[in-house]
């Protein structure tokens, strides 16, 4: 790939205390595609994802070395402005966590903290983003109800709308469907497929079938090492590494 990628990881090592969670990872995440990170539990998938927006900073005893270039800027540099880095990426977590406020305020939260004040402008943003995440029809008559009253599936779509409202370039999903029912999961997957023209999407999943359904590009992690990465078709149909083949066939998990 010749074009410049949003996210470029170089020799990334992450340690929790003495335990090394990620070992010398180097990879480029392709733009405007869905990249799926797969691998067995505890292999470092989530750590890698959380390194991208520096949520790992918030944990105890974490040390990261190497570089993660986002738009050419090394975000692991202590001088990097963490607020700006995070603004570039929307995050969907395993279980949706709406903020303790109304549906409207959830979506308006990001724009407000980044300086949008006008009522009219906020109204437009909220409507646009809720439509973008296919939630508008279900909530348009109760925008000022507490977000906690929505169903879990609706909450996850709200979290998507909330993330999109800060106009990120990248969407990160940390097993974003693991708390959802099959129907809601499918809607989120569908959403990702629609959004990939405009956003770079990175999703962690432990569901292989899901990875096959949505992935354009795949990273396979095992025990903190990046074993193999490449276009989805290659990884799923013709993996080069024995470990990858075993994982995809389901003999290791």
């Amino acid at each position: 790939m010749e074009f410049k990628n949003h996210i470029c990881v170089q020799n990334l090592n992450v340690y929790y205390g003495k335990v090394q969670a990620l070992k010398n990872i180097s990879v480029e995440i392709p733009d405007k595609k869905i990249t799926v990170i797969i691998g067995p539990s505890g292999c470092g998938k989530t750590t890698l994802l959380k390194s991208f927006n520096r949520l790992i900073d918030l944990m105890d005893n974490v040390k990261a070395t190497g570089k993660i270039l986002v738009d050419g800027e090394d975000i692991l540099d202590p001088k990097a402005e963490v607020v700006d880095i995070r603004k570039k990426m929307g995050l969907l977590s395993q279980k949706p966590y709406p903020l303790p406020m109304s549906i409207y305020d959830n979506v308006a939260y990001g724009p407000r903290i980044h300086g949008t004040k006008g009522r009219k402008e906020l109204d437009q943003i909220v409507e646009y983003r809720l439509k973008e995440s296919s939630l508008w029809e279900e909530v348009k008559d109760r925008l000022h109800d507490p977000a906690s009253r929505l169903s879990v599936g609706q909450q996850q779509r709200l979290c998507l709308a909330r993330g999109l409202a800060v106009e990120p370039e990248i969407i990160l999903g940390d097993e974003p469907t693991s708390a959802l029912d099959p129907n809601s999961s499918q809607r989120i997957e569908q959403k990702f497929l629609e959004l990939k023209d405009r956003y770079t999407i990175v999703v962690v999943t432990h569901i292989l079938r899901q990875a096959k359904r949505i992935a354009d590009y795949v990273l396979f992690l095992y025990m903190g090492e990046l074993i193999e990465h490449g276009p989805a078709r290659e990884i799923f149909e013709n993996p080069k590494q024995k470990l990858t083949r075993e994982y995809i066939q389901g003999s290791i998990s």
Partner: protein
Amino acid sequence: MDSRKIEENVFKGLMIFSSLVISAGLLWILAVIIIKGLPAMNLAMITQAPKGGFYLGKEGGILNAIVGSLLLAGGATALALFLSLPLVLYLNVYLKKGARLAVFTRFSLDVLWGVPSIVYGAFGFTLMLFFGLRASLLGGIIAVALLIFPIMCRAMDEVMQMIPQELMNASYSLGSTRWETAFKVVVRQALPGILTAILIAFGRGIGDAASVIFTAGFTDSVSFSLFRPVATLPLAIFYQLGTPFPEVQARAHASSLILTIIIITISIGARILTKRFQGYVVK
């Protein structure tokens, strides 16, 4: 009957017994206050300050102590909140879980919680002497604020520790600063708990006698000045109970009744407020 079933029944019985003892205790206290205090209750009690000879059984009321206690407990609660909210936000948002400073601060708060209120009174008094203050509303506010500060902190801290890290992460990943996360997300999520903490602290503050004996003093007039002594309900009860006259002692019980009613009113008010804000809390 097998032994596991006996075990189950014995412990169930024990739990019911404990619950009954506590409820009965509360009802008993209320009954005593009402039976002994109600006959001495009249409009003058809550609308008048003590007149000459009040403590000998002559006319007057305890408006001085009602006003004084509300001002003092309200002021102390506000002061304690002003100090404790930043502290608990620092503990829960800025410090990492298990940080040495956080462990030490929580330990200190627990120790402070256990310090008897007379010690806060004595400490407050020393502080006042140092600053050249007399017994006054301000002195009382400072002493009571010291007393209720650890209570308020720990009560809020308990609630904030329950907030999932993921909720804060959600806020961070939208690009908010720690300050924004603290005040817009953590405070809102913990709001019912914060209200409860304020209430518990207020209740503890308005009912404490030992911390105000030296620091707030006492006066028979209704005073609003920060720099003059104020009367408080617990001391009013104490002085009236200390007289040898049955009618004055009955008024002490009436005063207890008033104090209890104030506390119950605030409890119920806080419950209603808590319910109103509960809706937004994310589970």
